[in-house]
């Protein structure tokens, strides 16, 4: 899943990366934000309940609602 800082929270790392890219000669870069990409393997055969679980994990641990948003995409992998 993808966990990103809320729009309202400023992201110095994104700013530095932007500057660095400009310095490297990419003026067309408008704005950069850096978040987390979490890939997670679940042993579940039912997509529904898997989604519910992931939802829950995000709320409880993986994402801090005060500063972050998340979105998760699930994919069914045969005999994972």
């Amino acid at each position, binding site marked *: 899943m993808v966990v990103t800082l809320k729009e309202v929270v400023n992201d110095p*790392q994104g700013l530095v990366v932007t500057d*660095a890219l400009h310095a490297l000669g990419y003026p067309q870069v408008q704005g950069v934000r850096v978040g987390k990409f979490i890939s997670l393997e679940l042993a579940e055969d039912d997509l529904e309940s898997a989604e519910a679980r992931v939802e829950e994990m995000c709320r409880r641990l993986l994402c801090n609602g005060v500063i972050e948003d998340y979105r998760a995409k699930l994919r069914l992998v045969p005999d994972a």
Partner: protein
Amino acid sequence: MRPAAADSPPTSAELRELALSESEYRSAADQLGRAPNRLELGMIGALWSEHCSYKTSRALLRRLPSEGGRVVQGPGENAGVVDLGGDLLCCFKIESHNHPSAIEPVQGAATGVGGILRDVFAMGARPVALLDGLRFGDLADPGQRHRFARVVEGIGWYGNCIGVPTVGGETYFDEAYQHNCLVNAMCVGLVQRDQLVKARASGPGNSLLLVGADTGRDGIHGATFASVQLDQEAEGRRPAVQVGNPFLEKCLLEACLELTGDPDLIGLQDCGAAGLTSSCAEMAQRGGVGLEIAVEKVSRRERGMTPYEVMLSESQERMVLVVRRGSEERFRTAFRRWGLHCEVVGRVIEQPLFRITENGSEVAALPLQLLIAGFPERHPVARAPQLSSLVAADPLAATPPWSPEDAWLRLLASPNCGDRQWIWRQYDHQVGDDTVLGPGGDAAVLRLRGRSDGLALTIDSAHRSVGLEPRRATAIALAEAVRNLACVGAAPIGITNCLNFGDPDRPEIMWQLEEAIGGLADAARELGIPVVSGNVSLYNQFAGRGIPPTPTLGLVGLLPDLSRRLGAGFLAEGDLVALVGAPGAGPAQVELGGSEYQRIAYGVLEGPAPELDLSREARSAQAILAAIDHGLLSSAHDCALGGLAVTLAESALLGGLGARISPPLDPPQESSPNWRFGLLFGETQGRYLVSLPTGRLAAAAALFAQFNTEFAALGSVGGATIAVEGVAEIGLEQAAIAWSGAISAQMDSSPSPQR
């Protein structure tokens, strides 16, 4: 002995991969009485690598004095140990992580710190301090800035996360390190005498435990990797880079320290270069027994790993223990409490053999003698290059590009003389609540709990002349380190050293190695300081070009009375400024050979290295310690890089006070009209710049006379400028701007985005 499943003889390509020569292979086969199989060959290759065997430097290292009244453990264990008195021991060692840091700066530097920490807590000692020795190319190069920033980040990350303060270090920039940055890390630990653990296996039937990280395909051939030139080849060896886990290591550290002193703990050893193979072989050999490992018992991070991969994996954050048979469960429980899993992977056996089995069948069986001591020592030819004309050159001949003031400010603004705060503010230098003097002075000072004395630590490398006169320049490094300790009020008690050199198969580099070790050996003997541990890093070479020889010394000293400690900064307006230990006529020396001024003004290295008089050094260090002990001084600062002018400015800037001195202006007759630059920036050895209350002048003069050490009051503290009467004068503000921006101005102009 029964050959384990024989293989076809290795191709020369395979041997190259293992950094084994044809003749070494033959020697191994002869000693074994058969052809080693692939696994055995891999194990031999790893242990016979320069990194593990020291096959090229060993003979030379024997010259280093390692005896002394305080020495509890010299070279040969994971770290050296000296006695601090009252049953408290100090355990320390320096190690290089140059090659990994060149390839992946953050992780390379971080795992270097992780490795040296394990060497220290493997002995049962609690790490109380880290120091780092860094060498990079020109900071004006963005690539170098990036690498430098990343290495500092990596060192900081690991040390900060594990909670061991990084209290000091050394940093130097020169184009010559453009392709081979040097990253040396030193760790210092404390242990009660009865808690000291040795890395020895004993007692056949006792169990071998592996604890910590799961074993993955990390850094296979890392040991050999560190023993070959860094070049295009490195591309293909990249998997040798690893991601460190300071969190796991912190748990390992605490768990191990809980167990030291347990009568059932027989041996403890870190898994470093060459992983299980080297750590187990070393433990068995030291204990004069054998070991048997059931490779399937080693818990893995990845599927389908072969015995070869398991035995040669260099996965970080792992330790091996030998525990008394029957006590295994107790140990496993203790580790589990820290969230660490710990498996019994083997046992001690009678015969001096290293046996590897997989599901009951033997896959390798090698005599430990062969593994640890069987390698043919290498004695490459050493030949001195033609340098006499360079050494003879007169560094004062050329016309100075700048005025004295201009040169002074440029030196202060150069990353080698300027303020290092940009580095150490990223290091937690206080955790542990014992740091009395952190980074920024001549030496760091830690208190010792419940005692009135303290510990002093410093890292110093050879004078820049090392390329021309390795012997003297290395001795100078030791003299300077001793002065650094003396400045805070400490006497040296032990040395660790890291020898960073190029390809020893080049005669001139072998010569550098011989000379440097000789210089260190002589100086250490003369000054009576034992060398108790160290590390050698060779093949610091890129595309045929080697680094300047870079012997780096780590010294540990004792302050008899912590309350007497001194700083390098001026303390009070009106104090006198004096120069101690200046040979001959006074400060009017013209020793610019290999000086920092020469480097930035002319970009050359020529002229004789500064004179070094070790008996004088010993005397003046004694005198300074006595003066400090009698409470005569307000500050003391070693007069080194950048000479009198830079030293004076540093004491002024650290104290936030100006100063004015008027050295006797009596230029040696023969010296050129440039003698002023020699006076300001000459790097004449043996000197201390001190300050003292006027009321103490007589007493100080008398004391230094007793020690037959030169003492000359040159001026006083105060005013808004830093002045050398009749030669040059700069504003305190001006100087502060130049000095404090030397590194930060360049670095903060290009913050590094990653991680």
